[in-house]
């Protein structure tokens, strides 16, 4: 089933074209890997898909208006003055917390769960932010450079997780400079 259909998407900023006439579809259980050089507009395209940014031209059509999307962008959306546990309590309701805490343990953050998040390393903060995606069960996951800052083991874990979610009919759209290990469609943005 088709979830998203993008027709002739263009985006310009200050008269400078970032990308022009991009068209693609995303179906249920399908992965879309967006690749391109730095500054080519990968993150902007993700924001356009999410409806945060409006395209200069073109249209994105969502087949289901109430599509549940989990998103992780460049900004981690975690609070540095709270502990990892408190951050997860803010993100998840009572029913989702058990799974979130489970992921906290799986990602090796148990020993720092009560420390201030601001004192954690970049990679640890990134892992914490990833739990927002890992412990939720949306219809679609949108990730902007999810592998940046992660150690080898977590990279593998994330790859396996995404592959498994694709098999469970979840759709995934992501940007990366690292080739994913699972099978998915590729959309290359050229400047």
């Amino acid at each position: 089933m088709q979830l998203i259909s993008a027709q002739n998407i263009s985006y310009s900023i200050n008269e400078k074209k970032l990308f022009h006439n991009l068209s693609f579809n995303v179906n249920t259980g399908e992965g879309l890997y967006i690749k391109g050089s730095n500054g080519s507009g990968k993150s902007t395209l993700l924001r356009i898909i999410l409806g945060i940014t409006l395209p200069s031209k073109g249209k994105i059509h969502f087949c289901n208006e109430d599509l549940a999307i989990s998103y992780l962008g460049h900004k981690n959306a975690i609070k540095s003055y709270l502990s990892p546990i408190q951050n997860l309590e803010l993100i998840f309701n009572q029913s989702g917390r058990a799974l979130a805490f489970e992921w906290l343990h799986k990602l090796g953050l148990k020993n720092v769960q009560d420390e201030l998040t601001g004192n954690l390393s970049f990679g640890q903060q990134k892992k914490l932010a990833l739990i927002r995606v890992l412990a939720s069960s949306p219809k679609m996951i949108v990730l902007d450079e999810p592998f940046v800052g992660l150690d080898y083991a977590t990279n593998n874990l994330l790859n396996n997780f995404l592959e498994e979610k694709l098999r469970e009919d979840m759709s995934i759209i992501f940007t990366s400079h690292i080739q994913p290990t699972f099978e998915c469609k590729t959309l290359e943005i050229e400047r």
Partner: protein
Amino acid sequence: MLRLIRTESFKLSRKLKSWLGPQLILVLVLIAFPLSIDISQYDLDKFYFSIIVISLMMTAFISTEGMFEEDFEDGSLEQEFLLEQDFYKIVLSKMLIYVFFIGIPIALIGSLFLITNGADFDDLPKVFSILCLSNILLFNLFSFGNALSINKGAMLGVLTSLPLALPVIILLGRAVRTIQYGEGFFSIIILMSGISLIVLAIMPIVISAALKTHID
């Protein structure tokens, strides 16, 4: 909405600097002022109210400085937009929480200081109510300024919205006179309540639009 109110109150309660700081500054100013003049020469209760009004305005100004900036910087606003598709509810929740955590305590501090500096104790509820209402107006105005310039350092926008606070100060001055002369208080409190309700209903829409342009 309840989720947002719970979230915002939890976040603000953990930021001691954000809610306790403005209250301490207000207390310091209100203590320091009588010490800096020869109080035996003045009727302090006559003009101490003006000092409270100005201090309150400055405290509201400081309190709202980081209202949206942190959520904008760390990406929480984007996440909230994905959930709710606009910012009305989050702005309204933040406003209510800020007024509850900072606005009401500073109105109480201001009222108590006025009483301890010679004003009639019977006027305490009147003073407290007009200070509370003026705080609702001031917090809304300054947070609008904050939202306007969130990506250029929120203080700049708060400064530009400072002139908007002048009508509130004029209204407060009028309210003070009604308390001092003992007549017309109820008409002014009804007027201020009406304005506060309208501002509280409309301003989050305006602030929400300003925030949307910044995350776009």
